Structure formats: C-alpha cells, structure tokens
C-alpha cells in the first residue's frame, strides 16, 4: 500500500520517483517468502527534500533525515502509524557518477508496475538487478543470498549487466556483491574498496572509519569524515534510547565512541 501512496503523492506533486527493491522488484529477484518491511523509493535528487515535506503533510513523520540517516547521507526514513516505514532516497550508495546523472539514466529507461492499484515507475529489469546487487554488498546478513538469487535470475544477461556497472561506476560494490575472484582482485586497489569491504563484512566502527577516510576524495572531505565520526547522531541515539536524548546521553555516547576507537587502535597495535 505504501508504494501506492508514494505513487499518488509523487504524481500529484510533479515529483519524479522510482520504486526500488522489495515489492517493486521483479518477482523472480527474491526468494519466495523473503520479508520486506520498508518501502524504498528513489527520488530525483533536487526534488527529494520537497517530497519529504509532502509526506510530512500527509501523516509521515521523519525519523532520520538525509544528513543523519547513514554515512552516505543518501536517504531519509519516515514513519506512518498505519503504513509503516518508507525510505526516501536522494542518491544510491555505490553509484560513483553524479546523483542527477544516475537518476536520469534510471528514469529514462523506466518501466511501470501496478502496486496497490497504482501505476508505479520502477527501474528496468537490468537496472533493478544492479540496484539490488549494489545494495546487497553492504548487507552482511542477507546480502549473499540476495546477490546469488539475482545473478541466477539474470544468468543470460550478465554481459549487459556488466555494461551497466561501467556506466554507473559501481565496480567496487558489484565485485564484492558477486564475489567473483577475478572481479574482487581488480577492485582491491580502488580507493573505496576498504569501505565496501568493511560494510560487506559488518566490520567495527574503526574499520569503517578507515574505509571512509580512504574513500574520501581530498583533505577537506577526509576532515569532514573524521569530524563527523565523533559527532553523535541525534536521530540514531533517540531511536536506540526510545526517548529524546539528554545532555548526559550525548556525553556518554561521545565517551563510549572515543573509548571504543582507542581500544580498537590499541588492540591492533599490540597485535603487531
């Protein structure tokens, strides 16, 4: 139903929106019975904030904003008391080309799928496979299964899929998701390899931070990553505590992060 709602609201407000993953994906891309609780949509980047406001005006409450949701700052999570969660993406982690260009490439070859009586725009079959595979590379729990299923469904179209990987600049996450020996070797020197490897393996905060630093382009970007790692994410803290954080909560969280980082660093040094 949530997908249907998104389609109506996007249409009425002139927002270009693609429904991705889960119930929006082709039927043979997931194993039967695989649960999918959230609805994911990808919005034309410059329209994303406006669409979140539209959702807010229709009963959806913002749980995490674009800037606080993830390290990629790619999506806002919203909650409706009846319809549950929707993740509004303004970009897709793993695509290294500019966000507006990536969206336009997906939009220009879109298909339509009827969900809850509403026509819903979805990426075409090949692009949807790429999206699911790239996403699976940072899902340590279900990523492997999802990737194998999609690869199996596309067995006769892998050459075209590889072409799409090139066009979207998704080499590293794709190679990790598909775990092809030759493929992984070819991306190990990429600046974003450590980051995607850390995500795929569910590595600790320090390894993730090192990955993000290696992937960041330029000194300013690296400085932002380093600073951001010690600033407590209010939305995530509130979700964890299930209440509004107080000053002592922020202090405790900051101390815990610093302590954990130092402990990891000390542990690594003593191993050498």
């Amino acid at each position, binding site marked *: *139903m949530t997908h*249907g*709602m998104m*389609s*109506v*609201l996007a249409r*009425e407000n002139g927002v270009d929106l693609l429904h991705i993953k889960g119930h929006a994906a082709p039927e043979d891309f997931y194993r039967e019975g695989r649960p999918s609780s959230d609805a994911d949509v990808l919005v034309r980047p410059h329209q994303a904030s406006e669409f979140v406001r539209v959702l807010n*005006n*229709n*009963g959806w409450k913002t749980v995490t904003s674009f800037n606080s949701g993830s390290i990629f700052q790619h999506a806002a999570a919203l909650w409706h008391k*009846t319809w549950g969660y929707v993740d509004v993406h303004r970009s897709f982690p793993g695509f290294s080309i500019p966000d507006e260009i990536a969206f336009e490439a997906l939009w220009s070859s879109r298909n339509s799928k009827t969900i*809850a*009586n*509403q026509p819903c725009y979805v990426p075409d079959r090949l692009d949807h496979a790429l999206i699911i595979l790239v996403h699976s590379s940072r899902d340590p729990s279900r990523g492997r299964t999802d990737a194998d299923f999609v690869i199996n469904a596309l067995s006769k179209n892998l050459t075209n899929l590889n072409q799409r990987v090139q066009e979207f600049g998704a080499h590293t996450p794709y190679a990790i998701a598909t775990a092809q020996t030759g493929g992984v070797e070819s991306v190990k020197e990429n600046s974003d390899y450590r980051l995607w490897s850390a995500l795929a393996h569910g590595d600790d905060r320090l390894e993730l931070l090192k990955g993000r630093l290696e992937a960041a382009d330029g000194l300013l970007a690296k400085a932002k990553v380093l600073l951001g790692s010690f600033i407590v994410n209010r939305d995530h803290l509130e979700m964890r505590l299930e209440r509004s954080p107080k000053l002592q909560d922020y202090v405790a969280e900051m101390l815990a992060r610093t302590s954990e980082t130092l402990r990891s660093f000390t542990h690594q040094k003593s191993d050498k």
Partner: protein
Amino acid sequence: MRVSSYKISPRCTFEWDSFSGDDQSVICAVPGGEAVVLSGSGAIIWLELSEKFQSTDEITSAVASYFEIDPSTIQAAVMQTLQALHSHDLLEGLTIS
C-alpha cells in the same frame, strides 16, 4: 443534487487479502486519509466497482446478481456503503440535479 454514479478514485490505493476460507477482504485508502477494510458484502461491492463511472442501479444489480437475490432487497444497504466510501474519498461521484 444527488450522486447517480460512482467510480474508484484515481487517488485510491487498495490491496486484496485472503484469510483462511473463502472470505476475502480489501484494504483501501487515499494519502492522508484513514484506512478502510471491507469484508463480506462490502468486499463484493468493491469488487463490482471499477475506474469507470457506473450508476448506482448497475452496481446494485451486479451485487444482487452475485448473491442471487432481488436488487430491491439490498438497494438501501448498497447505497449506504457507496455513500460511506465516497465520504472517505475512496470513490468519486457523478452528481445530477
């Protein structure tokens, strides 16, 4: 003025669900509105509705035919249901003076 015909609103999202047994239910909603769940005869009424305007007589006849009963026996109940669905913005109505 009275509403003479109804059709499913283009803003309406709905999904059918099957519980154990033969009963089907359908959940309907428009963005910003409340969810409405129809089951039993309500679900049959929804089944007969479409995205094209149909007169209330047509809808009543279709539902009566499904249950193999005289339309006059259910006309009031069908009208009441259609009006309720219309008030939830799930249906669009065509009025005549």
